[in-house]
């Protein structure tokens, strides 16, 4: 037990990899065995995360459950992991969504073994980003997660998968080049990659660096970081890879992509950009808020204009992630104030909430696509009587996405807007247009699928959602209600961590 607690993070981090390695030696004909093994194996990190949640002391500042051992001593990089309240929430989201996505993957029939291996590797990559307290380790996990996702889209995706997967990986890799160079430069200048030490040394730099004033260098590196993370979030105008990747990815891939991968970018802002570049962040916060507003408005317009159900959900991610970025911009602009803390807590909670609702939405789109083999909204219509359970769940998750009071999305979006109103009044007011259109596109989606005149071609061809699929949605729905009604259990952890940092 002592060992378990001491190395809890490493165990959570590498359990999926170990499971993937075991699957490597299972016979590939045993598809069912592999599916069950992968699913059950992915439950263990989740159970351990609950243990982590209980062992976590939310009133203690700094990082907890730290492990720090030399990894690449030649350049002073360590295997240093640890969590605070913000990363803890993200770890919970990851370990929760992975088993659900694997359960959703039971309908995959083609090459199950490599699929499951890649999916489990992906989990380690994502968890590593949230746990890393060493810049080089952070970058390692940041990049390594791309590979499984690339192959999941490229091998198990839809018709246009080659284009979409290449666009996905080249966009993200091109964005990371600046990040890579910046991390190297930070390492050279501070002589360490350890996040805690880097923050002390980096912020106390003065004079000139490489013949250029430190402030100029910092501004350049700030933008390199911002672009890398903005592509991942994605912030308008760097978002164009996202609808393609989502549309082509297999359903569970979309769930993870929207549910967790997008959060990596936002997490990068919170963990690295704001603490390392407080002055630059404050200076450019207005620009960031403007981009967030554009993402909120254009994301909503874009979603409204779609005829492909999956693209509609994909654009809605841009819309919802815009609120996360807006919250971050508020925190950057007014650091140390009450508004900053409210907005930042709202942003972190919005990350968690969007993870729940977008995974649910993508899954439901996948459920109907698997039966109808089309995602065109104009092909559906009046399906409610044919698939009543599916219809009910779709409306429920849509309402969470729309921000209905009593469900989770309302709490976080309200907090972001409450925080940003005094700081960016005009931008917040304009963002409300986006929020209005969120309602419109969601209702449009529901109307075109479930209501209106019944499209006769589906009569007798559509079966309702099955038990396995309902089981995937139950935990999501339960959390959506729980956070909507009683957000304190999670908000307390987030808020305390945010208060200590910002």
């Amino acid at each position, binding site marked *: 037990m002592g060992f378990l607690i001491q190395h809890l993070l490493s165990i959570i981090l590498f359990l999926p990899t170990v499971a993937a390695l075991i699957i490597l030696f299972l016979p590939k004909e045993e598809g069912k065995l592999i599916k069950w093994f992968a699913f059950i194996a992915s439950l263990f990190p989740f159970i351990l995360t609950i243990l982590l949640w209980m062992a976590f002391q939310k009133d203690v500042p700094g990082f907890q459950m730290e492990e720090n051992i030399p990894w690449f001593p030649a350049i002073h990089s360590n295997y240093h992991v640890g969590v605070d309240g913000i990363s803890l929430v993200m770890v919970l989201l990851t370990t929760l969504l992975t088993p659900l996505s694997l359960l959703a993957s039971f309908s995959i029939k083609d090459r199950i073994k490599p699929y499951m291996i890649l999916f489990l590797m992906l989990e380690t990559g994502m968890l590593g980003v949230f746990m890393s307290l060493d810049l080089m380790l952070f970058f390692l996990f940041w990049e390594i997660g791309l590979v499984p996702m690339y192959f999941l889209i490229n091998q198990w995706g839809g018709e246009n998968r080659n284009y979409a997967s290449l666009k996905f990986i080249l966009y993200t890799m091109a964005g990371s080049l600046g990040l890579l160079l910046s991390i190297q430069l930070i*390492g050279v200048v501070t002589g360490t990659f350890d996040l805690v030490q880097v923050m002390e040394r980096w912020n106390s730099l003065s004079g000139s660096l490489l013949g250029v004033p430190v402030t100029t260098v910092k501004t350049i590196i700030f933008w390199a970081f911002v672009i890398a993370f903005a592509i991942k979030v994605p912030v308008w105008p760097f978002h164009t890879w996202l609808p393609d990747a989502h549309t082509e990815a297999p359903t569970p891939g979309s769930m993870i992509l929207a549910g967790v991968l997008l959060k990596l970018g936002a997490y990068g802002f919170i963990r690295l950009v704001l603490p390392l570049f407080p002055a630059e962040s404050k200076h450019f916060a207005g620009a960031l808020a403007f981009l967030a507003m554009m993402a909120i408005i254009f994301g909503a317009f874009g979603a409204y204009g779609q005829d492909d159900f999956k693209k509609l959900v994909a654009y809605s991610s841009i819309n919802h992630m815009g609120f996360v970025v807006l919250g971050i911009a508020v925190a950057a602009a007014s650091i140390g104030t009450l508004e900053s803390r409210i907005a930042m807590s709202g942003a972190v909670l919005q990350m968690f909430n969007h993870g729940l609702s977008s995974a649910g939405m993508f899954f439901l789109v996948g459920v109907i696509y698997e039966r109808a083999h089309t995602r065109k909204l104009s092909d559906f219509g009046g399906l409610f009587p044919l698939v009543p359970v599916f219809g009910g769940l779709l409306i429920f998750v849509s309402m969470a996405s729309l921000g209905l009071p009593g469900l989770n999305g309302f709490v976080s979006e309200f907090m972001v807007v409450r925080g940003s109103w005094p700081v960016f009044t005009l931008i917040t007011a304009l963002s409300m247009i986006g929020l209005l259109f969120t309602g419109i596109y969601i209702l449009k989606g529901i109307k075109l699928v479930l209501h209106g005149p019944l499209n006769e071609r589906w009569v007798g061809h559509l079966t309702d959602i099955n038990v396995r699929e309902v089981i995937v949605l139950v935990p999501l729905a339960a959390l959506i209600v729980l956070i909507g009604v009683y957000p304190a259990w999670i908000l307390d952890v987030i808020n305390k961590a945010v208060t200590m940092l910002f």
Partner: protein
Amino acid sequence: MQFPILSVIIFLPLAAGILILMYPAERKTEIKATALAATAISFLLSLWLFIAFPSYNLQPGKYLFEQQFNWLPNFGISYHVGVDGLSLPMVLLTGIVGVTGVMISWRVDDRPREFFAFLMFLVTSVFGVFVSLDLFMLFFFFEIAVFPKYLMIAIWGWPKTRDYGSLKLTLYLFIGSMVALLGVLAMALYGGKPNFDMISLENAGFSMEFQRLWFPVVFVGFGILAGMFPFHSWAPDGHVAAPTAISMLLAGVEMKVGAFAALRIAIMLLPQGAKIWAPVIIVLATINVVYGALIALVQTDFKYVIGFSSVSHMGLVLLGFAAGVSQSFAKGITPSADGFIGAGMQMFSHGVMTAMFFAIVGMVYDRAHTRDLDKLGGMAKVMPFAAIGFIIAGLVSMGMPGFSGFAAEFPIFMGLWRAYPAVAIIAVIGVIITAAYILRVVNKVFFGEMNPELVGHITDIGILDKVTIVLLAVFMIGFGIFPSLLSNVVGSGMMHVLQLLGGA
């Protein structure tokens, strides 16, 4: 007297080669088994050396398992071998590529006796170069391989270009080594009395003028062997013309001979000259990285893509050298061996990676009988193991974190930041182009639809091919996840280089 482990590693393949030549030509199995046994033992011994190395806690400037006999004392020539952190990874690399080269050649049916005998001579030659501590001996070992190399390409090579490729490669390598030899003779005769011993030459006190004059001669001579721009064009042509095992050895190990000798002789013995000429090296090496990658991107022949990727990656090694040399006297930044450590790791990483590439290109070509990227496709369905191997090597090549290529490139770039920040920004373009051409060939060769002409004609790879892939992959992933296993060894050798440069 201690067990002469280095001499055993060097001469075991040579002995096997001579033994093979005495077998009757039709005893193919015995021939192959002998070659495999000799290279396997050399590999295991070098692996043991590598694992045991940290426990010796070697001081910079000292060598392990040293052996010295007088050879031609009047000319200051001796048989002098030893390893340090610089050469040991290269010895291990030679061991790996040697044994995998034999396994990959198992299906050679055309005059296997001569083929395997020549292969053994080649392996001995490279082992010899890396452990030589005597300049004459280093050249001796290098030159004994010239003739087998030429013959192996000319006889067993790709019929379309083997005449051209073998001649071009041999002439380039010959000219390179002759130019370098000129400089080396000047160094050996500097003090009046001839002295070829590398350790004592470190303290020969070459004058500034001498170093400035002779450094470019020695460095360019060896640089040609390493594929330095604008003398790189032998490498793709030669690699493509050569049979698979020889491509693996040429790109995997022989190019490292050039880079290794450029470091060991040009930079370590003429450090002041290196400081003067480093800016020129950096320009040429940057062109290597970016230009090599761009040319690889537009190739239509599978093997040429890999050939040019070697040019690009060897550029990173040279960048690491130049960064290491320059930063040690750059102002305001504490000297560190980052660039050198990265270069040393990149030499190893590129060696195993390119050996894997060429091995798999060979497997595909042997089955499809074409390397035209437009005619290949869907290979992952019939040879999934080869596809995974290629993807792993591709990820190393792209500098994906968690693989050895990243662990090597990262310190190189840190070194560049210390010395030439602008170059770091330019050279990183090479990384993204590399990602593009690797993904392009992976998609064209292994995924997509298979050429209808080939359907049903492609068989999966054999067990020895799989062993080869696993062996090479273990090193690429192992050193990627635990880079300190490699960097500690390389670092102990590079500290000495830094001392000679006056940095630490």
